[in-house]
């Protein structure tokens, strides 16, 4: 029998890991790293873009794309190592809507013209994308979506609205699914379109969340928005399969294991170094047990992800849903533990510019609480964890 992480320990893998670590310690700007360490999700467009360009200059942007499209063409093992090292260093995630979601869908389903038109903007980090999937009445039950696209000559005309659109307020373009036909089954009649967010008739309305972080999500209203038909990916009515493939890619990323490992490592270091009232935090039996339990739960899903990613071959389907389920559960437990362990200052609500003399403890604790609240979303988005359970019940257990 072979250990699950055996190929991560090969000479090539070790050398690749060393290069990535060196790149990160050289090039990751401290002001960006600091935001990652504080678990901040609401990176500004400028910060996301400048980091993307640094990564691009090193040839590591769009790491999973084939080289012919300008990607890094990394192997699965290299992608895994890259993601882990970025997280451990506190680097931001890739700009997922363009890089991780639309890019692969375009490469798989787009025409040559569409690839040539849209991939370079993503690769260079110049065009920001958002995802127009969810609606007020089509969240976990995405196929019930109603936002309509009516064919009118060479155009589609969109009317309706999209909801919970992450980064809609900073995006240049949207990829989304729209209803072109409502006569058949609800999964039919869905069409995948790309549209310019500056098109006349679009109104973006930010939604303020309760957690005290900056704006992340929006409502987008469409009033007779005209979209050229050559911005349709795949066939008219064939959007559901493309959307599903985009969501499946999302489900792997959504396990968030690398970020959880980084968060837990930081929390453990904190507990080893800090004392409260003369007692080292790790000498508090209830804290030590809590940390050990978190590590246990995280290892369980980490090892299962390794197995599913690298040993499953073609046979893996619905099983992947368990990674999102268990991964986001443990992620939320870790962040809740951090906000508890960082102590009383967690109830301080610091805004973008905390007082210059605010103790670092306050800043860390305040952001820990924000992160604890903010990340509840990971159990809700990408198909809520209840939907993941339904997928597993039907797809794996045959219920």
């Amino acid at each position, binding site marked *: 029998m072979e250990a*699950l992480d055996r190929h991560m320990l090969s000479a090539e893998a070790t050398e690749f890991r060393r290069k990535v670590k060196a790149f990160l310690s050289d090039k990751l700007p401290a002001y960006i790293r600091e935001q990652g360490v504080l678990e901040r999700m609401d990176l500004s467009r400028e910060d996301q873009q400048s980091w993307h360009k640094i990564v691009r200059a090193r040839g590591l942007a769009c790491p999973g794309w084939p080289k012919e499209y300008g990607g890094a063409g990394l192997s699965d093992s290299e992608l895994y190592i890259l993601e882990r090292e970025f997280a451990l260093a506190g680097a931001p995630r890739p700009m997922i809507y363009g890089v991780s979601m639309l890019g692969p869908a375009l490469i798989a389903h787009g025409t040559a013209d569409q690839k040539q038109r849209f991939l370079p903007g993503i690769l260079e980090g110049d065009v920001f994308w958002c995802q127009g999937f969810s609606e007020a009445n089509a969240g976990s039950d995405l196929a019930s979506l109603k936002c309509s696209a009516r064919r009118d000559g060479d155009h589609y005309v969109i009317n309706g609205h999209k909801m919970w659109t992450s980064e809609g307020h900073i995006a240049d373009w949207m990829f989304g699914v729209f209803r072109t036909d409502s006569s058949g089954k609800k999964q039919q009649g869905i069409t995948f379109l790309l549209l310019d967010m500056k098109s006349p008739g679009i109104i973006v309305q930010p939604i303020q969340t309760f957690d005290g972080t900056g704006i992340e999500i929006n409502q987008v209203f469409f009033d007779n928005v005209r979209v050229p038909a050559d911005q349709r990916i795949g066939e008219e009515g064939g959007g559901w399969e493309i959307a599903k493939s985009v969501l499946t890619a999302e489900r792997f990323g959504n396990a968030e294991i690398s970020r959880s490992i980084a968060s837990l490592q930081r929390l453990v270091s904190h507990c080893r170094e800090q004392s409260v009232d003369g007692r080292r935090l790790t000498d508090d039996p209830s804290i030590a047990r809590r940390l050990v*339990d978190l590590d*246990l739960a995280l290892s*369980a899903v980490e090892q299962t992800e390794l197995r599913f990613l690298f040993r499953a071959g073609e046979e893996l389907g619905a*099983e992947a849903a368990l990674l999102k389920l268990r991964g986001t559960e443990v992620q939320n437990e870790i962040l809740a533990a951090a906000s508890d362990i960082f102590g009383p200052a967690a109830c301080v609500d610091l805004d973008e510019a905390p007082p210059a003399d605010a103790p670092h403890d306050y800043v860390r604790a305040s952001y820990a609480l924000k992160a604890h609240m903010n990340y509840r979303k990971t159990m809700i988005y990408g198909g809520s964890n209840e939907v993941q359970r339904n997928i597993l019940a039907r797809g794996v*257990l045959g219920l």
Partner: protein
Amino acid sequence: MIRAMALNETDMQIRDLVADRLAAVPAGRESAAATLSALAELGVLAVPLPETMGGTGEGIGNAALLLEPLGQHASATPYLETICVPSAIAGFYPAFAPLSAALGSSAGGGKGAVMAWMEQGRGWSRTPTLTTAVEKGGTWVVNGHKSLVRCADFAETFLVTAAVKGVPALFWLPAATSGVSLTHYRSADGRTLTDIQLDDVVLEADCRIDDGDAQAAIDYGLDAGAALSTCEAVGLMDRCLDMTVDYLKTREQFGGPLSRMQALQHRLVEMYADVECAWSLAHGAACCLSPEMPAARRQATVSKAKAYVGRKGRQVALEALQMHGAIGMTKEYPLGRYLQRLTSIDRDYGDSQWHLDRLERALRGDCA
């Protein structure tokens, strides 16, 4: 059913061979000997042993290929006790011929040697204090007590841990030696547990197996037992899940099968997720037994697997029982055996609490 196992073709062949053979052996508390001899006929008992002894030569972790199907079958065999743990000890002392001979006998389906390490009132401590050995005129005189030795009914010899001037040592102690008295108990999962009283037991000088301090070997042997017990547990857990899914699909209440109820479906999914994760950790624990693995990393990997599987194994079996309802409480229905076995496995080679404590010591940076 566990999906996408990380096993190569040869591994899968061994595993499937064992599973097929076990299907023809009656399961149950009385069938341990029959199960062993059926597997001995196939020649697979030796799988974790060195190639010179008929094994695959890939290390004792490969015992998982037998243990998981054994778990599926809920056979409480002494495989872990007579082959796996002694084989781990033998790796430390390859020149100690009687141990190799005992392993050969066990691999052929006969009696062998089991480790006797627990002491009454000392929980899961791996360091002997109540059993002592003193050198006297070229022999060893052993006194003390070993408690709840697993599967002694399949052993002719005990690997006894004893303190020599306060330092842990390992002795080769034939059961028939004068001064040895045995008291047998039955465990809830149908195994034999034996207390060994040692009164002035005189052993030849060459019955001491170690060369000065056996703690590392004892730790490794017991870690091997802990790690591989999780592989058996995963088989048990997996069957609990399958039994429950099948039962709920056929059990009609309120005008339809119970499997239509979303509340029950989601509980089954929780069981499923735990079983998959348990498989991953158990596989990792079996693989980390390779001799090159640094002890600290091995201990962390094994303890994580043992604590996770110990708790989740019992939880999965209890959930299975709850969802079966009254039928699951009967002796005739097999589920109870799975629950008893999983509960017993949590109490072998250190329970969940002991392994969590060891992880906590590592977290604090204390010595393990």
